[in-house]
């Protein structure tokens, strides 16, 4: 019992997600500032490290405005659901050797499905906002997630095919430098699809502020907005952790195995994502659809074929 409470509220549950959100938010700001030739937050705490904490607690205490003419229950429950569904995948992730809350045979499936539900919840937030911009944002996120999830799913299947299992712990245990090399094409496709799923540049189409103000976020404020931000960062964690687990060998390190390496791998993905954010303008919905269905999905299928070939050549034993 105490185990369950610990995992749901401390690690890898609520507290962990909160610390991750505050930390990553601060890191994003500082890293982005360096790329922008700015200073970034610098007044509160060392290097502005308290700034994000203050900002998030400020959001919590602000009024949550519910616009006229919306269903208040739908409007307010969606952010909460979004947070919960974004936090669930971390239960299936093997954070360190033997540290996994639910060690399931269908871990990979749970991961993909839970990540896939998230955009639909965000679509509902836009749908329930009774605002033209929110609605457009909702439609856009639905369009984008449908196109990107196909290649996302196909890419995440490649380690499962290679190791003939959907159990994440087994996948990590069997991964090696050689399997990493074989899975590189899959990793690249996973990473690009991840940008689409997380609405990161160049795929930040659903909340394109210059076009549709703030997309599905437009009407949210105060606590509800805090929830949505938390959901976004929890989603970052789920998707990064998924990438680290499936392709990069999770906690496996150079001299010793530890959570430290897992964290470093997640940060590496975060840094690449941020650098792309600083150098790539947004593309349009048409370009995204073209790119997804004309290139990503066929390439993901080719990747499956490549993994099958590699399996028959080198991984028959496993």
């Amino acid at each position: 019992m105490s185990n369950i409470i610990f995992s749901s509220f401390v690690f890898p549950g609520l507290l962990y997600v909160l610390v991750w959100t505050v930390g990553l938010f601060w890191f994003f700001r500082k890293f982005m500032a360096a790329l922008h030739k700015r200073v970034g937050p610098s007044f509160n705490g060392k290097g502005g490290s308290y700034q994000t904490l203050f900002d998030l607690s400020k959001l919590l205490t602000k009024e949550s405005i519910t616009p006229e003419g919306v269903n208040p229950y739908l409007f307010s429950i969606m952010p909460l659901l979004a947070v919960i569904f974004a936090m669930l995948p971390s239960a299936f992730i093997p954070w360190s050797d033997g540290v996994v809350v639910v060690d399931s045979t269908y871990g990979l499936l749970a991961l993909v499905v839970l990540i896939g539900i998230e955009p639909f919840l965000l679509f509902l937030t836009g749908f329930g906002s009774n605002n033209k911009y929110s609605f457009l944002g909702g439609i856009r996120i639905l369009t984008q997630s449908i196109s990107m999830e196909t290649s996302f799913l196909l890419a995440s299947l490649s380690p499962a095919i290679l190791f003939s299992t959907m159990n994440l712990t087994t996948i990590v245990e069997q991964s090696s430098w050689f399997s990493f090399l074989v899975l590189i094409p899959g990793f690249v496709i996973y990473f690009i699809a991840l940008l689409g799923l997380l609405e990161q540049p160049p795929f930040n189409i659903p909340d394109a502020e210059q076009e549709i103000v703030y997309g599905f976020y437009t009407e949210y404020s105060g606590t509800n907005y805090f929830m949505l931000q938390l959901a976004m960062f929890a989603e970052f964690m789920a998707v990064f952790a998924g990438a680290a687990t499936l392709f990069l060998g999770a906690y496996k390190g150079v001299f010793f195995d530890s959570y430290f390496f897992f964290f470093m791998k997640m940060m590496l993905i975060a840094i690449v994502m941020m650098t792309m954010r600083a150098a790539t303008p947004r593309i349009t919905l048409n370009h995204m659809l073209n790119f997804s269905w004309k290139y990503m999905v066929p390439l993901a299928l080719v990747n499956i074929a490549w993994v099958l070939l590699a399996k028959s050549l080198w991984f028959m034993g496993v």
Partner: protein
Amino acid sequence: MNKVKELISTFDCEYVQDYKKIWIKAKLNSKDDLLHVAKALKEEGLKSISTVSPTDFIADGIMEMNYFFEDLKNKRNLWLKVDLERDEEKCVIESITPLFASASWHEREAYSMFGVRFLNHPDLRDIIKSEDFKDKYPFRKDFDWLEHEKDTLGNMQQIVNSFKKEQGENEVDLDTDSSETILNWGPTHPASGPIRLRVHCDGEEIISVDPDIGYVWRALEHLVTQKDFIGSIVAVERLCFMDNINSMVGYAMAVEEIAGVEITPFAAWMRTLLGEVARVSSHFMGLGMFFNNMGLHTLAMWNMDTREFFLDFLESYSGARIATAAVEPGGVRYGLDMAMFDELQKALDKFDATIGEVEAVFVNNPTMKLRADDVGVLSEEEAYKFGLSGIVARASGVKTDIRIDEPYAAYGELDLEYITQKTGSAKDRFIMIFQDLKQSIDIIKQSKAHIEKSVEAGEMNPTKDHMVKVPKKLPKGEAISRVEWARGEVLMHLVTEEKAKTPYRLKLRAPSFNHTMMLDYLLKGQTLSDIPLIFGSLYICQGDLDR
């Protein structure tokens, strides 16, 4: 030139005379001839109209219309005047919009501000002024501003009511079975600035765009008539904060022409130098804005970093970074301490050190090219037709640059060439700003070197030569001046009365007005994603849009 003169002489004119190098000034006796003249001019090749500007001579009971026809290709311009009766009932003239598309908004402005009615204008609605001025004509000399402002609350209520009425009715006519809707793009929108585009769209696809402007209307043209000739510069420079020097240069030139004053060579070179510094600071913003509108803020941040150094120079010279008030009739406002050039050298060094990475990461950015290569295309012919100028016209391949066409300040002595692009797409306009920026840096270097050389040789005295005296009272007269502003052509038409202490009328023709007119034309059939891109590429500033 002669051909235009001959052509205009065939009509019934009060006078036809040469004016400046590339202008002909003529006055028609009858307003009925206007359409025939306009048609003949268009056939002759004067395809653009810069602006339509009424002047209200209340004492004579006359509303004098000024039309500025331009031939961007062969540099032949015509300033055509015709008198109307000032009486509101009879203040009517044929619209030339059916012939010159670029006149459309200018005629609407004349209608809103002066109550001149244009017959056969396709879309004669109020523009710029807010709803509380409905059926009032604020720029008429007999308009009582104080009386109007007494009822502030009532005026605000009127604005609110009309907005609510519009919001209540704007979707009534739409097909309920379709996904058509009216979106407000602005005025409180992350990328719009103080402008509102009524976007009629079907899902993501745009059916039409109707810009609603006037959110930062300061009535500058009226404001200057309340100030003396030197005080007016602070109103004129607020045309747009990004490039304030060049607008002051234009105004100062008009005043000097009426006063008959020649400025010193030092002042002319300083105007060139300061003007280019202001242009650089504006172009930095314009480049950044273009990428901001595609959701990438890095370039704007990098540009701000370099721009600060140029503003440092402006600050050391004038004491202010943005609204410098550094140019006034008679020369430039302050003497130059040669040590200030160290500040400028720092800025130039910073520019040379950083421009390479901007070019590598942003000007050659493949994603930008993917998005901007084939949207917002304006052909050369369209640039003539819609009276475009500056960056936008040059990106379409039109060789127009007032610094070369009609040199002012010290531009005649500089080594300058037309820089143009070919296709006129949004990408070309972005690259055009970048090339123009590089050219400006080159001009700054040339003028800095020239000033340093002349001061060393003793030909210029930087602390004494900056001003010549301009009389406080000006004679009766009128003048036009044109400058190549950061965004394009600024034309100023200044009218003074006998022993004038204030301008009687100052028309400010600013380029963003024409460029904003293009939005509907360019955005029809595109998607919502293209609005910020095309808007950003047209390099619009709401300051000079509303004035």
